[in-house]
Every structure is written in C-alpha cells, then in structure tokens.
C-alpha cells in the first residue's frame, strides 16, 4: 500500500541547529491492517507519520503509494492525494470551534465541490455509525472528549479515504474510551481501510486489534513485529 525507501528528514537543514529526525527508514505498510508506530518521545514518530500522510516531504528518500512514486509531486497534487486518500485524526482532535458537529465533519469535502446534500447525507450515515446522531447540531466545544474524538473520526472518513492516519489518538482518552476507539479502528480495518497510528500507550501497542508494530528509536526503525496470529 505505502512504501518508504531510505527516508531521511532534516529540520533546519544547513543551519547551525540542523537536526536529523529520521535517519534512513525503509518500511512497507500493508493494506487493510492496523499499524502502530511506537517509540520513546522524540524518536520521530510524528515526523514519520507526517511523511506517510503526505503532510510533509522527506528530505531524502522515496514515498510510494500503491506503487507510484509520490515524493516528487508538486504541492497541488500532494494536496489532492492527501484529500482523496488520507483521513487524519489529531491528538488535540483539531475540530473547528463554533461549528456544529456535522459542519466539522463535512469540512474536508468542501474543496472537492461535492454537493452539500451529498456531504450531509454521508456525514449523517457516519454519525449514525458512531452512535452520535443525537449530537449532530451541537457545537463541538460542548461535546465530551470521546464524542469529539468520534466526530474527528467521522471527519477523517468523509472523503472515504483508503488510509486513516492518527497521531496519539488515545492520549486524551481514558482506558474505556481508548478501548472503544480501538474497536472502531478494528472495524474500519476489517472494512478494508488501512490504519496507521502512533502511540506510546501500552494499552494500544499491546492491544489485540493491532496487526503490526513498528518500533522507532533516534530516528531509526529498530524492529517490526506482526502481533496478530490470525492473518487471513
């Protein structure tokens, strides 16, 4: 699905505070699986995730999406790919305050020019799937943390992406909500979506819904473990 070849990423390149956050990473993300990037703080998880999700470009190396090299594409095309192929869930949820749940969910659909009725219809289906239909018109700042997270998931899914990317998605959730969230991810993966998340929460890393764990340290991939026995 997604392949990285010899990815290196420098911040402030050429300056006195140049810092290499990733130092040559090769990995392959299989489709329709739940993948977790783990590692100590500062090991480069978020940096790697932004490269996987086309939010940032690597300084060196290639990113291949479904066999196609996308690391050299201009910004416009990258945005297009990001919009159609990726859905994002952020640690702070990053919902737009003041807008209702449903308005937040349909935001990623705006630049596509999809008719509003269609977007709303899809958003309602997603809300129903998350058991959130009753909170449809509530302003997002009034929602509980778990509800906000589910709204964020709906938003990530509105453009029907193949890959779902989440950075520390459970950091703001208690263990019960985290478990529920993981169950949702499992469902999405079983429905054919690829899920990539970062975490240092053992509850996530050791969870049985996770298919594969990538361990990072100091910007290098040190271990890849397939955790689930039952591969189809």
């Amino acid at each position: 699905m997604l392949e990285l070849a010899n990815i290196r990423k420098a911040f402030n390149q050429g300056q006195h505070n140049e810092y290499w956050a990733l130092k040559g990473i090769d990995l392959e993300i299989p489709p329709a699986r739940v993948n977790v990037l783990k590692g100590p703080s500062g090991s480069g998880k978020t940096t790697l995730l932004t490269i996987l999700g086309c939010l940032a470009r690597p300084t060196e190396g290639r990113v291949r999406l479904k066999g196609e090299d996308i690391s050299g594409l201009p910004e416009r095309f990258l945005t297009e790919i990001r919009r159609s192929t990726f859905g994002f869930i952020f640690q702070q949820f990053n919902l737009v305050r003041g807008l209702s749940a449903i308005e937040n969910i349909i935001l990623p659909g705006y630049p596509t020019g999809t008719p509003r009725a269609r977007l709303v219809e899809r958003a309602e289906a997603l809300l129903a799937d998350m058991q959130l239909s009753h909170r449809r018109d509530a302003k997002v700042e009034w929602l509980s943390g778990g509800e906000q997270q589910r709204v964020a998931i709906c938003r990530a899914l509105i453009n029907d992406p193949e890959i779902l990317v989440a950075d520390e998605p459970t950091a703001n959730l208690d263990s019960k909500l985290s478990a529920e969230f993981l169950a949702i991810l499992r469902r999405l993966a079983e429905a054919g979506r690829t899920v990539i998340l970062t975490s240092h929460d053992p509850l996530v890393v050791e969870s049985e819904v996770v298919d594969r764990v990538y361990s990072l340290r100091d910007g290098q991939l040190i271990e890849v473990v397939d955790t689930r026995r039952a591969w189809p």
Partner: protein
Amino acid sequence: MNRWIEKQRHLIDFTASSLARRKGKSLGLLVVYTLLVFVLASVSLYTHALRNEATRVLAGTPEVVLQRLIAGRHDLIPPGYIEKIGRVRGVQKIEGRLWGYYYDSVLKANYTFMVPSDRRIAEGEIVVGPALERSRGLAEGNGISFRAYSGELHTFIVSEVLAHESELVNADLVLMSEADFRRFFAYPDGHYTDIALWVANPQEVRNVGLKLINALPDSRPILREEVLRTYASIFDWREGMMLALLSAAILAFGIFAWEKAAGLSAEEKREIGILKAIGWETGDVIAMKFWEGFLVSLLAFLLGYVAAYVHVFHFEFALFAPVLQGWAVLYPSFALTPKIDGLQVATLFVFSVLPYTAATLVPIWRAATTDPDTVMRS
C-alpha cells in the same frame, strides 16, 4: 463549472459561519463600514445632484451682468450709463436691475430685496420667498414691518408667497415695486444696482464683454459662463471642510480595518492549519478569505449607498445640511432631483470594496502557505 460553483458556495458557508461565530466583531465592523460608505456617498450624491441642478437652473441667467466699480468697490449705475451700453454692437437687450440686501435684526438673517421686471407689484405690497414664510410666519395678507436705514418703519402687506418648489433660487427673496424699493433704501432716482444684458449672437458674448470693458473701463462684466463655472465648481474647494473632517474618520477606519483584517488571531491561524491538514489547498483558504472580505465590503457598500440615497433624496440631506449651510439663518429646504453619475457610483464601489478585500487577503497569504504538518505540533 457546477463543481466550481458548489465549491464557492461551500467556501461561503464556511466564511458565513465563521463571521457568525464572531458575531459582535463582524457586526460592529459592518456597521462602522456601512456608516463610512453612507457619509461618503451622501456627500458625493448631494454635491453631484446640487451641481447638476445649479447648472440646469442657472442656464437662464442673464448672459452678462454688468457691475460698476469705483475704487475697486461695487457702486451704483448712474443715469446715462445704460444708454452708453446701447451703443456697443451686438447687445440685444439691456435692463437695469434693482436689488439689495436687507438685514433683519429680529431673525439675524439677510434677505434679498429686489424689484421684479416681469410683474407689477402694487405699492405697499410685497411677494416673499418661502424661507420668510417659514421663519417669520408670513402668509398671504399678513403685514410685516421693515426698518429702513433712515430709521423709519415701513409696513408691507404680503400679496403672494413664491413657490416652494423653487426654494433653491427664491427662498430669501422679497419682491416689491420700484417706488417702494427706492423709497425704502433712499435709492437715488435713475440709479440702478447693476445691469443685465443679452447678446444677439451667443458666440459673441466674450467679445461683447471685452468691448464693454473697453468702452466703460470702470465696469466689471460677469458672463453667464462664469456664473455657471462658479456653480460647477461648487464644493470642490479643498474638497470641502466636511471631507477634510471625514478624512480623519477614513484614516481611523483604515487603521481599524487593517488591524482587524491584517492581524490574524491565533484562533484563525489554528483554523487555517486545520483546514490545510484536512486537505484544503492554499488557494481554497485564500478564496475563502476573499469571500469574507468581498462579502463584508460589498454589503457595506450596498447598504451604505442605499442609506445615503434615501438620506439625500428623501430626507433632504438632513444630517449634514447644517454643516454645508454654515452660519446662514435662512436656508432653503429643497428636494434635489436625483441625478446620479454611473462613474461616481463605480468609483465609490471600487474605493469601498477593493481596499478592504485586499487587506483581508494580504495576511492570509503567509498563513495559508504554512506547511500543513505544523498542525500536528500544536
């Protein structure tokens, strides 16, 4: 095309709800902005219409008004002067005018007393302009006394009040018979205030003026052309006191708008980051902000202009008239004929919509081009 329209509507959706979110601020901005357009448009519409009306109405002024100067001061036309002019070639008709000012110490107002050449007014009677009707409470059949310079009181009966529809030219007039006029002002017989004359060939007016100065070196001819030019330049001088005052307001608004539009709040910056991360292009964010600036300024322009129109043509420019009328006690109340210049409206549109729209776009440029991954690190 449909997709494009749908997308713009989405962007307007977002803009509209973000404006609604900052309700107080947006509404305040719209109100101040609308007020500014209102003031500018009021002054602009008013002066344009007044200028037009003046040019139109004064087209019937005598072709030449001839004054006599002594030691650089205006003086009476002595007997025999008119006959001398009669010998200047090209002059078709000559008439001595009798008029002057009267200061009414009751109202502290100046009236224009004159002897009409088109009608006979019986001795002891006067015809008054509508401003006198209003301020002195005069009506047909009422009597009024004026104190002459000699000190004696003269009483006149009002036989007619001039038409209200012509207040712009007749408001302060007091018309009386020649005998009354001469008696009241102790005006010497055979003397006139000035001379109105008409020229047979309109192309010759300038020449006739020159000939008059040559023949009568103490005369000062005022051509109709000059009268019209005086009124065409009405309110142009230093763009007017009001516009000068207004420029301070414009400046203040400029600063306010800049501050509001240019300084993106942290909240807005965060929002732009989110939008970019979830797949909005730089162009989408800019288009969204464009709609914000454009819609706000367009609305301010439309509402301000409509309010100004109603103010000028339905309410006689009531809010600002006192400024323009200066210290005058008698002022005409007149409904101007709406004469609107397309170019003038277009200029107003451009000057009210463009700068603000541009001001909203400038800061967004930088924010919108930030890398989408920054949102991961907030």
